[in-house]
């Protein structure tokens, strides 16, 4: 149990219910919720804010993360009506969470400056996808009118729409530039095209089956999201996992980070017109994907996870084969990273592009390489160790500059660290202790987390007595990191910088839309 969290709760007058040594729950009356969360957010990080309407009375839950003394606090408040006082005027990081609560559950944050929808386009106003239809719900509040795009008008300002069908094989999202010619004056962002209602689809499914939805939340972070979901279910059931499984999970998660990061760096090289660089990283990414395919039978590691362990074992020869590749990869990736740093046509495009100041990043609680490039030194692998991460040595690279160049450097440095972690795991492989017993299904709820390639992913899962999903809330890193995107584009960049900006953020619309 965490002393820091106990002190914090005592200061706020909250009674803690310790569900696990590192996870406590507390509740407070609806009227006090906003004050309590704002107060706690001074010393803890507001990692998520979500509503639950599927399993009883409507309820708000704030997830607060204590880094100094690793622990999580889930603060909940039951709502009597369909409105609640908005946190956004005092806590900017709550803004998009509250918009999502409104569109998905029909609970209106009163006092929110712009509570319009993020994901739903042309959707009947009274219907909210996550809210159960049955049971005679009272008439829900209608959304205040929100303009579709930021209105920047004036002489010489023209509008330039892009998407949802864009050039090349890219994901669907819509961008609306206001420009005076070269500069981006403002960017309007429209996401939600790919909203597949994953969390809603999972409701009522056995957790083992819902896992394949978690793995398909986003292509290049499927394993990390699947792992966070699996861990949430395992924590809810009180299942412990064998050491071999923990090692394998960490190894596969790092392999996913490698192919994802190498893909990101390759796209950055491509965005500056450096095609040889893009091709070189394309080779590295393909080799990592093939290694994943040989190890697990799936290039994106899908189907490898199981609640309580893994579906597969990595034999000694498979491990040796992977270990033999690591040194060559490190040598090539380090050389290429250095070569990119020395290439002026590449660096000039990245320097001071899409600046995010450390203050801005802190205010929005940014995660992953985007946050770490703006001075936020946080990484769940180090701060809240899971799988086998407490048994290996690694650095968490961070930069203070906050531009595209810093994000590039963080990606390069992180891929080197991933190789370092993989080598340690493979060199110190634990003895097989036999298969883990099958999990005993019962009701429960818990938080699970993992460090996806794009940053911290947080999954809250509530199970019913036979192990079906009653409520699943996924907060992948894209939910946090799309928020500053428009701001970063608008701060003194040109239209030609746009491909560089998007590549440097490395966030997927699918992971946001879900």
């Amino acid at each position, binding site marked *: 149990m965490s002393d820091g969290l106990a002190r914090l709760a005592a200061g706020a007058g909250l009674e803690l219910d310790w569900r696990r040594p590192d996870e406590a729950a507390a509740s407070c009356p609806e009227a006090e919720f906003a004050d309590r969360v704002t107060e706690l957010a001074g010393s803890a990080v507001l990692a998520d804010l979500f509503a639950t309407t599927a399993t009883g009375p409507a309820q708000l839950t704030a997830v607060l993360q204590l880094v100094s003394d690793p622990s999580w606090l889930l603060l909940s408040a039951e709502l009597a009506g369909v409105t609640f006082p908005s946190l956004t005027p005092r806590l900017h990081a709550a803004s998009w969470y509250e918009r999502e609560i409104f569109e998905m559950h029909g609970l209106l944050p009163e006092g929110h400056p712009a509570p319009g929808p993020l994901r739903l386009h042309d959707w009947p106003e009274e219907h909210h996808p996550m809210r159960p239809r049955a049971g005679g719900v009272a008439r829900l509040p209608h959304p205040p009118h929100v303009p579709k795009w930021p209105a920047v008008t004036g002489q010489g300002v023209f509008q330039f729409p892009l998407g*949802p069908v864009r050039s090349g094989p890219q994901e669907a999202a819509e961008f609306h530039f206001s420009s005076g010619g070269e500069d981006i004056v403002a960017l309007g962002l429209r996401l939600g095209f790919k909203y597949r209602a994953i969390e809603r689809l999972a409701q009522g499914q056995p957790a083992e089956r819902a896992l394949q939805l978690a793995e398909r939340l986003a292509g290049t972070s499927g394993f990390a999201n699947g792992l966070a979901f699996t861990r949430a279910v395992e924590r809810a059931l009180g299942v412990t996992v064998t050491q071999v499984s923990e090692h394998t999970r960490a190894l596969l998660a790092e392999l996913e980070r490698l192919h994802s990061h190498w893909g990101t760096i390759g796209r950055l090289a491509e965005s500056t017109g450096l095609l040889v660089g893009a091709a070189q990283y394309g080779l590295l990414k393909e080799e990592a994907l093939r290694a994943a395919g040989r190890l697990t039978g799936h290039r994106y590691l899908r189907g490898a996870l199981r609640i309580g362990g893994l579906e597969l074992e990595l034999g000694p020869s498979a491990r040796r084969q992977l270990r033999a590749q690591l040194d060559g990869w490190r040598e090539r990736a380090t050389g290429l990273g250095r070569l990119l740093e020395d290439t002026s046509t590449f660096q000039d495009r990245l320097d001071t592009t899409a600046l995010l100041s450390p203050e801005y990043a802190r205010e929005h609680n940014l995660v992953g390489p985007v946050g770490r490039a703006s001075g936020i030194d946080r990484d769940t692998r180090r701060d809240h160790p899971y799988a086998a991460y407490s048994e290996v040595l690694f650095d968490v690279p961070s930069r203070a500059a906050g531009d595209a160049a810093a994000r590039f450097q963080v990606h390069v440095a992180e891929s080197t660290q991933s190789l370092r972690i993989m080598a340690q795991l493979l060199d110190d492989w634990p003895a097989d202790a036999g298969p883990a017993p099958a999990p005993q299904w019962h009701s429960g709820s818990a938080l699970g987390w993992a460090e996806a390639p794009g940053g911290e992913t947080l999954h809250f899962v509530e199970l019913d007595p036979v192990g079906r999903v009653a409520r699943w809330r996924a907060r992948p890193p894209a939910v946090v990191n799309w928020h500053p995107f428009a701001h970063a584009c608008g701060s003194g960049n040109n239209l030609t910088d746009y491909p560089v900006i998007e590549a440097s953020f490395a966030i997927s619309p699918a992971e946001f839309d879900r």
Partner: protein
Amino acid sequence: MSRWLTRGLRSGVRTTRFPDPGEAGEEGAASSVRLRWQALAPAQALVAARDCPTTAIEASGTESVGEMRFDAGACIMCGRCSRAFPEAFTAAPDPRVSVLQRDRLRATVRWSAGEPLAPAALHEVAVAVRRKAHRLFGRSLHIRHVDAGSCNGCESELQQLASPYVDLQRLGLFFTPTPRHADALLVTGVVTRNLRSALLATYAAMPAPKLVVAAGACAISCGSFAGGPMTVGPLDRLLPVDAYVPGCPPTPQALLHGLLLAIGRASERANVLEEASDGA
């Protein structure tokens, strides 16, 4: 710049010769599951159907009499069936899995008194249509990709098509940013409510004659998301589809085979059934 040149040259030629014979299956993983129906008992079919997360395996009947419907177009490669019954469900890394007709991905196996009956005959391929497509597009094809609600797995593999390992341009295939210049529409994803009109507008903007390729389990059958409140697919409910590329996601070589198949430059290897004597 000269350092980049020497580095590029030092890497040598890494490109596969696929679709030339003998160059397939170096990608480390399979794009589709094939069925050896002789090696499956009805009781096993019932278990496989229970564990299948999509509609790829559906079975009815008892321990000795029954029927199993297998649909490789709905398979998301979760591996449950091939781990439980490796003799019957095989994930062979041959990327030549694309087909021209949706039914070619389906098979029905029936059992009577515990003995399997030979599966129903499969549809003939419309050869004449392929010849015409070959004449029109056989030399070069410009492809417009539309993401209709994927997980980004398909896009990640599509981006690998341009990597030196696959290099689709050596075959005269190009991605084009504008639908006005496109000969083929390559669609990934389940077709969400929010992307339906963008997809149809892109198709309408393409000049005739035009081909449509459905890539991945989502585009073919909605995969894991079938029946979801936001799913309006599968694709062939909205547009006429010329080739189906199964996989979750399809591997780069599988995508390449699907594109070449659509323009008559490759042929269907076989159907989803694999004879036990095949030796594969």
